[in-house]
C-alpha cells in the first residue's frame, strides 16, 4: 500500500470519527474530507461506504447532487463569481467574460499552473454592494474588471 492511500484512509477515518453519531453524518463528513484535501477523491467513496454503512451509489449520488463537492482537486485559489440577479444588475455578465479571459479558463476549470479555479456561485449575500466575488473564504464587493485584475495580480505576486 502506498503512503498516499494510507493517508487518505486516515483522513476518512478521522472525518468519520469527528462526526460519529450525528444525524445525517455523511454531509459533515464529506465537508471535512473536502476541507482537508480540497476535493473528495473517488477512492474515498468505498472507504466512506464501509465506515458509514451506506452504499457507494448513495454516496456518489450525494457528491454529485451538491455543487460544492468536487471530485478532482481545485487550484490553489478558488474563485467564485456571483452570477445572480443583483450582481447582474451591476455588470457581472461583463465581469464574467473578463475573468474568463484574464484567467484563460471557463467555469469549472483550473489554470494550467494550478493556481486558480473558476466557478459560478449564485449569491453571496453581498447584493447591496455588487458585483461580488469570493476568493477562498474572503468576499469582495463592487468588483470591477480593474479591481478583479488587481486581486489576481496580488495573488500571483504572493509566493
Amino acid at each position, binding site marked *: 500500500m502506498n503512503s498516499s492511500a494510507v493517508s487518505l484512509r486516515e483522513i476518512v477515518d478521522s472525518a468519520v470519527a469527528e462526526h460519529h453519531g450525528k444525524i*445525517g453524518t455523511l*454531509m*459533515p463528513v464529506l465537508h471535512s474530507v473536502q476541507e482537508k484535501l480540497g476535493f473528495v477523491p473517488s477512492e474515498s467513496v468505498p472507504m466512506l461506504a464501509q465506515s458509514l454503512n451506506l452504499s457507494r451509489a448513495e454516496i456518489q449520488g450525494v457528491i454529485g447532487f451538491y455543487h460544492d463537492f468536487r471530485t478532482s482537486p481545485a487550484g490553489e485559489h478558488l474563485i467564485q463569481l456571483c452570477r445572480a440577479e443583483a450582481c447582474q444588475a451591476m455588470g457581472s455578465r461583463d465581469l464574467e467574460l473578463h475573468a474568463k479571459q484574464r484567467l484563460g479558463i471557463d467555469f469549472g476549470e483550473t489554470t494550467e499552473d494550478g493556481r486558480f479555479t473558476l466557478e459560478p456561485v449564485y449569491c453571496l449575500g453581498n447584493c447591496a454592494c455588487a458585483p461580488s466575488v469570493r476568493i477562498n473564504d474572503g468576499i469582495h464587493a463592487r468588483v470591477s474588471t480593474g479591481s478583479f485584475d488587481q486581486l489576481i495580480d496580488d495573488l500571483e505576486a504572493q509566493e
Partner: protein
Amino acid sequence: MSALKVFVPRDATACALGADAVADSILAGAKGRGIEIELVRNGSRGAFWLEPLVEVETESGRMAFGPVALADVPGLFESGFPGPADHALGLGPVDGIDWLASQQRLTFYRSGWTDPLSLDDYTRMGGYKGLKRALDLSSQAIVDEVKESGLRGRGGAAFPTGIKWQTVLDTPAEQKYIVCNADEGDSGTFADRLLMESDPFQLIEGMTIAGLAVGATEGFIYLRSEYPHCRRVLEEAIARASQANWLGEDIQGSGKAFKLELRIGAGAYICGEETSLLDSLEGKRGLIRFKPPLPAIEGLLGKPTVVNNVLSLGAISTILAEGAGYYRDFGTGRSRGTLTVQLAGNVRRGGLVEIPFGATLRELVEGYGGGTASGRPVRAIQVGGPLGAYLPESQWDVTLNYGALTDIGGMLGHGGIVVFDDTVDMAQQARFAMEFCAVESCGKCTPCRVGSVRGVEVIDRIVANQDREFNLKVLDDLCETMDKGSLCAMGGLTPMPVRSALKHFPADFGA
C-alpha cells in the same frame, strides 16, 4: 481616562468593502499616536452604502464616519479622530443618520449597537428576557402567545408560525426537532445573514423558545456554505451560549434542555425548500418530498419538526419578551410586525430597511434607495428573489405587503428588491430565470427539470426571431406546464419572472 471605544463592523459586506484592513489601520494609527483605544468589531446596521461605517463612543452618543476606505484612515486621524473630528466622512451621531433613524427596528433593534458575540451586550439590550419568561410558561402558553402575535413565516410562504407550532406540539413523539432555515438562497436577500452576523443570540434564543414551546430538545441551523463569515460567528455564538448555560442540558438551572448544532449546506439553492433541506440534513440528496405529510408531523427522521426561517425565529425572542400584543400592534391586516426588505442590485443606497408595513415599492427604491447606483433611470425591479416577478414602472406604486404583491401577480417572498437600470436586457433576465431553474432543479419532476432547459432554448429562438409566433406559443405552453405540473415552487414559480419580463418588456424580446 478609559480607552476610547471605536467600532468597525465585522459583517461580511463590511469586510468585503475592506473593514478588516480599516480596523487594522485604525489600531496601528492609534498606537503610533499613543492614543489608547478599544476596538470593537460590532455588527453592521445594514446601511451597506455607508460601510465600512466607523463609530466612536462619546458622551453625546456614537459619532459615525463612513464609508471609510483604508486610504481615508490617516486623514481621519489628522482631523482629530477618534476625538472630536471635523472630517468630510463625518456623519454626526449615528442615530441621527436619517436613513437609519427613520426606520423602525424591531428585529434589527440591536444590530450595530453590540458586539455580536458579547452575551453581556446582548442581555444589556433586552436579550434573553423572552427565554426567561418562556421558562416559566407552559408549552401551550408559549404557542398561544406566538399565535396571538400574528407572526407569519418570513421565509417566503408567510404561513402562520403559531399554527405550525401547534401542530408540532399536538403530535406525540419521543423526539421532536427545531430546524432553522438559514439557506437564504434568494439573490437580493441578506437579512438572515445580517441578523445572524449582527445578533446571533437572538436566533439562538428564539430557537430555544421554540424548543420549549413544542417539546423539542434538539435544534439545527442549516446555513448555506456561501456565508463563511456567518459560519464563524454562529460557531462562536453557539459555543458561548453553551458555556454560559443558555444552551445545554439544564438551561439556567431550569431543568429544561435544548442543544443546538450548526450544519453547513453545499451550494444547492433547492435546499432552502424545507423538505429538501430536511433530506439534506439527513445526509441525502436534497430532493423535494411530497406533502403531506407536513414536516410538522413527519419532519427530520420522520419526527415532528418545526422548520422556520431565521427572521421568524428571531422575532420569537421579541414576542416572548414584550408580549404578543406588542408585536401584533406593529403592522396591519394580515401583515404583522415590521416589513423587512433588502435594497440590492443597481441601487445607490443599498441595505437592510425595516419599517412599518404600508410603504410603496417606489418610496423604498427612490427614498431609501436613492435611485440607481449608475445614475441612470430605473427600468425594472425584481421583488421576491429569483422566482419573483419583474415589475415595470406602472407597478411601482404597489404597497409592499404579502397581499398587495400577490394581487398584481408578484410576491414579497423574503423581501429582496433588486433594482435594474435602463441598460438591462429583459430577455436575458428571462433566459437566466430558466437557466437558474435548470441548474438548481432537484430533478424530481419533468416540467421543472426538462422544461427549464427547453425554456432557455425557446427564449434564444424568440430573441433570434425564429418562428416567432410559434415559439412564443411554445414558451407560453411551457410556462403553463411548469406552473401547473411542478411539485414545488422552483419549477412552479420560475414562469413568474419569465412571463412578467415578456409581458412588460416585449421590445427586449425583439417584438
